[in-house]
């Protein structure tokens, strides 16, 4: 591509007037570097670009073209070391004065701003010793040509190296780390880090495995409306949006629609979509918009049929992640070290009263019908882990008093209900129950909870024409990702998180 390089040379001079004399001097390599003209799809060259992750010892002594970002550059006399990065992979590249590169070319390479995208032609060489700090440790690239494809601004709002540095306790060597808000304000750059890349690859894996597993189990994926006319659970925590001449709400759960699909004989349904909660809680695990993985299923005689199905789905997801995403898990654990996620198959199922008993044994004072507080949830998680060595378990038979009105009461003990939560590393990720499918009972329970029957008329009416017994639950994707990887903030696992204080980017 000599023409492009020629043009590039001209632009290059505009940028750095100090290199004027370089044109005058005998630059034998001036065709071999420069800023390429903007790619407007003017041509379709046959050049094959090799992925950086594929550059291994087998490719030694081959001449290859690579596109990557300048991760770091370091000039040293007549040579310049670059680290080229492509997603979470990187390789060391060397520009040295010699047959292919002139002094000017080395200088040019050393002055390319970090994060710029470049096309590089080079020879793959076996490294004499392992190159620390690069993912491709056994080879390096000896650059023959280098062209800038897209230039980054010289000042970056945050340094990628700082953003992946593990947070050492006690500020050991006082090296910079990047705080959460700076990361989120400059999310595009933060997402380039190997840790972020791995987190979101894994998150995509969770979605994929969720779909795969459920479809294999005979579920049907449905799409539910997100703009709804009435709040599904009485009216709290919903966002109001203007809807032409009146107002509407953003769905806080697809539950009503899932249940309507069951009444419409779809038998087993699931959906993946955004869920909105207008809760003004600024905690490590609450978002105002998150991705809900929702399941609803008709069963034959016992809601445990559904519980087992959901738990197995999660176990299949964990297993799949363990098998397919080991690299990503390792990458994340470099920055955020944590124990690997452990689970049992079939999943451990405890009853609420047992959990209360375990907590009391550990010295916690709580009532039989009291809901679990967050610290108690965590403590229970630790107790269960100690005894059963599992990070994932189900808690069954919650007290009726702490569950929503549509929860089916227990047939034996009227104080209990056919409801369950699932926990990962001691934090709730799923909440579900057998739903009341009898309009009469539903009305009674709604009245008991003091809910305005007018507002939920449509909901109750959907059960008037015969409804199969059914149960289901909803999972928070961000929470599952966070807890699987042992991270401490749900904002790390939401690409562009929404919370009471953040609406951009």
């Amino acid at each position, binding site marked *: 591509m000599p023409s492009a390089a020629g043009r590039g040379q001209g632009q290059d001079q505009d940028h750095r007037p100090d290199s004027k004399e370089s044109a005058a001097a005998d630059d034998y390599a001036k065709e071999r570097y420069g800023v390429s003209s903007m790619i407007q799809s003017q041509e379709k060259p046959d050049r094959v670009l090799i992925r950086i992750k594929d550059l291994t010892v087998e490719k030694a002594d081959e001449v290859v073209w690579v596109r990557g970002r300048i991760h770091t550059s370091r000039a040293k006399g007549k040579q310049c070391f670059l680290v080229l990065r492509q997603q979470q992979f990187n390789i060391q590249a060397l520009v040295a004065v010699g047959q292919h590169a002139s002094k000017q070319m080395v200088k040019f390479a050393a002055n390319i701003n970090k994060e710029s995208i470049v096309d590089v032609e080079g020879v793959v060489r076996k490294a004499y010793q392992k190159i620390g700090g690069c993912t491709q440790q056994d080879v390096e690239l000896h650059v023959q040509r280098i062209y800038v494809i897209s230039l980054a601004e010289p000042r970056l709002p945050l340094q990628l190296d700082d953003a992946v540095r593990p947070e050492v306790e006690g500020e050991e060597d006082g090296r910079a780390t990047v705080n959460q808000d700076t990361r989120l304000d400059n999310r595009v750059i933060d997402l380039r880090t190997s840790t972020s890349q791995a987190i979101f690859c894994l998150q995509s894996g969770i979605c994929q495995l969720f779909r795969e597993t459920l479809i294999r189990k005979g579920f049907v994926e449905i799409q539910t409306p997100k703009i709804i006319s009435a709040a599904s659970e009485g009216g709290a925590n919903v966002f109001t949006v203007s809807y032409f001449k009146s107002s509407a709400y953003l769905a806080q759960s697809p539950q009503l629609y899932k249940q309507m699909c069951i009444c419409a004989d779809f038998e087993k349904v699931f959906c993946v979509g955004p869920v909105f909660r207008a809760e003004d809680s600024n905690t490590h695990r609450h978002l105002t918009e998150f991705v809900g993985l929702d399941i609803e299923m008709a069963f034959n005689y016992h809601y445990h049929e559904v519980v087992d199905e959901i738990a197995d789905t999660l176990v299949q997801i964990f297993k799949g992640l363990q098998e397919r995403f080991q690299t990503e898990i390792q990458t994340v654990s470099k920055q955020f070290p944590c124990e690997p996620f452990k689970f*049992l198959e079939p999943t451990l199922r405890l009853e609420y009263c047992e959990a209360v008993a375990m907590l009391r044994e550990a010295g916690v004072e709580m009532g039989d019908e009291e809901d679990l507080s967050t610290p108690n949830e965590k403590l229970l998680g630790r107790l269960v882990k100690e005894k059963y060595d599992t990070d994932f378990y189900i808690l069954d038979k919650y007290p009726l008093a702490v569950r929503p009105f549509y929860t089916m009461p227990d047939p034996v003990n009227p104080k209990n209900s056919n409801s369950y939560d699932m926990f990962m590393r001691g934090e709730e990720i799923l909440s579900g129950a057998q739903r009341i499918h009898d309009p009469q009972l539903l009305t009674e329970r709604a009245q008991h909870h003091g809910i305005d029957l007018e507002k939920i008329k449509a909901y109750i009416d959907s059960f008037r024409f015969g409804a199969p017994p059914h149960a289901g639950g909803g999972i928070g994707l961000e929470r599952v990702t966070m807890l699987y990887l042992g991270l401490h903030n749900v904002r790390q696992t939401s690409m562009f998180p929404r919370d009471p204080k953040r609406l951009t980017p």
Partner: protein
Amino acid sequence: MPMYTVRPFHRAAGAVLAEHWPACMYRVPSLHRRLSPDASPTPQEEVDPVLQALESRQEEILKRLYELKSAVDGLSKMIQTPDADFDVTNIIQTDECSPSTTSGADLDLMLGKDYGALKDIVINANPSLPPLSLLVLHSLLCERYKILSAVHTHSSVKSVPENLLKCFGEQPKKQPRHEYQLGFTLIWKDVPKPQMKFSVQTMCPIEGEGNIARFLFSLFGHKYSAVTSTLIDSWVDTAIFQLKEGSSKEKGAVLRSMNAALGKASWLGGSELTVADVVAWCALQQTGGAGAAPDNVQKWMKSCENLAPFSSVMKLLK
């Protein structure tokens, strides 16, 4: 200053107007009535029976404390003097294997007070070396108690053979969890040695097949004399360390001494099946030394295999 009317709180007689007494309060006799002239004799003269009861209880507790103190003193003296006359007769007073009438209440006694949760015994075992003796004891326990059995696979092991996943056979019809007396949770996990956890708050994990077997067997509530207990204990250790893990020379020696013991009694521990038989039988099965065993041992193995819990475990070996 704006004011508002309130209904009087007391009636003329002094009765409080509240219609429902709050449940969190209790009645107290009126303090004022005491002082009225026609009241009963002054409290100083009459000793309150409650106080009296309290006093006698204190006396009793103190007495027991003294007794305990002297008992502990006696014990410490005995331990500190190396050749104190250790009165063995005192210890072998318990009957040879007292018939046990164990029920849920005795389980409470043995396993400690609980807070209403299912008493769940968790056993971690490696699928490459299934702890057969624990499975035999499990089936024996099932004959005695109502046990909720469960098998799980831990994420640290990739795959577990189908027969091990079904090692508890078909479960009878499921009942609510709290109706069971005991839980028995077997987790196939990548552990070097079988491990048992019961109460994580008050008990440290028990390691090793023999030790867990002893614990499980103790749940039957059998009482043995000190001599028999020691004998049983030693057979368990012999089975684990010499029969199962020992060299062929050691195995031969154990088989010979077993043969001798079984010549005198039908079981290793005497006239009854004990944990020693279970562990020894399983060790023999797993090391594959059953064929070369001497006569009495062969006979004993036959009688073990005639029992259902043993024969069902035999199927796992195939």
